[in-house]
């Protein structure tokens, strides 16, 4: 609940922002962690939850998606297929050993030529959305997105909404999350837009 994940789908791509704090109880381990994992060349997943589940779940998905490509002669799975693969993994694990991760999966479908954003909670309820947020941040940011989001908006407007949300969190959210990492996925793939603190700096 305390990790922030924000996602906005705009015309031609998806923006996902995550806070960079890695904390447990009263202890703050680090403030430069990267919680947005690249799954394939054109999909990324912003994840909130305990670090162990975050890493295990995303690595499992990433490696299996890669395996599919290797086994099937380079065929890439669509964003929808990848999202449903994540859902099935989470749903199967739910009654065995659940992953406590809430995710926002964003991708650019190179065949359909459109961007898609998927919301998935830790119980594996999957829904395609235009924008959403995970964690306590949702209580602050969803109304900002509801107000400002219009269908067919562009990259600049989407980034502006994202920054508005982050500003609101900095002002009003009890937990201090000074650093945010924002990534974009569009026809050219996944890349970093801005970083609060360099994840590579250990």
């Amino acid at each position: 609940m305390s990790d922030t994940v924000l996602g906005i789908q705009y015309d031609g791509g998806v923006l996902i922002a995550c806070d960079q704090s890695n904390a447990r109880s009263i202890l703050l381990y680090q403030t430069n962690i990267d919680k947005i994992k690249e799954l394939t060349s054109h999909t990324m997943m912003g994840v909130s939850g305990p670090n162990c589940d975050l890493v295990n779940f995303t690595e499992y998905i990433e490696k299996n998606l890669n395996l599919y490509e290797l086994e099937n002669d380079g065929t890439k799975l669509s964003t929808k297929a990848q999202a449903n693969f994540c859902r099935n993994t989470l749903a199967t694990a739910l009654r065995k050993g659940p992953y406590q991760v809430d995710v926002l999966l964003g991708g650019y479908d190179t065949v359909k030529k459109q961007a898609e954003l998927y919301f998935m909670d830790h119980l594996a309820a999957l829904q395609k959305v235009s924008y959403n947020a995970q964690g306590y941040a949702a209580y602050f940011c969803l109304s900002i997105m509801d107000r400002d989001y219009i269908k067919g908006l562009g990259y600049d407007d989407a980034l502006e909404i994202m920054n508005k949300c982050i500003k609101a969190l900095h002002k009003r959210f009890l937990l201090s999350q000074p650093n945010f990492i924002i990534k974009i996925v569009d026809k050219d793939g996944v890349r970093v837009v801005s970083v609060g603190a360099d994840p590579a700096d250990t």
Partner: protein
Amino acid sequence: MSIMSYNGSAIIAMAGKDCVGIAADRRLGIQLKTVSTDFTKTFQMQPKLFVGLAGLATDVQTLHNLLEFRMSLFKLREERDMPPEVVNNLLSTLLYEKRFGPYFVEPIVAGLDEDNKPFLSCMDLIGSSVKANDFVVSGTCTGNMFGMCEALYRPDLNPDELFEALAQSLLSSVDRDAMSGWGGVVHIITKDGVMTKELKGRMD
């Protein structure tokens, strides 16, 4: 907080003269927060058969996938569509298999059988099913829906009258329930096809 009202749902199915209708709300919530207003809870499994799944959203999706799998297998093996009564029994069995760790869904089966006669049934989360001639309801506001249906239902409604009865029953029921609503969808199944209409309701 009951697990059956974690996500929120409202589904009604009604029988008319040689037609059936199924209506559902569109909300996906996480307790008091609304996540989405276009969540699908009614699934067209066959040209003249709908299954409505109310309850925990993850199990709605899991059970839909399971049902799709089993019905496709049936179609491949038997080279015919699955009759509504058989779908009802299949669902019942699937749910009871998980008797001591159930799927948190309460399904509704609505369709036309081979003679184009209406078929309606609903069941609880462990698969005990009951058939009806008039209407069946499932979700977080069943009390409201039973009341509305009892008031608005008449036997032998034609498709347009059935649509009106279903739409008004659903809208009035969900307006008094915090966990369901945020739009609606109605499907009317006749021997000639399916008519789908989106409902404009209170978005709160």
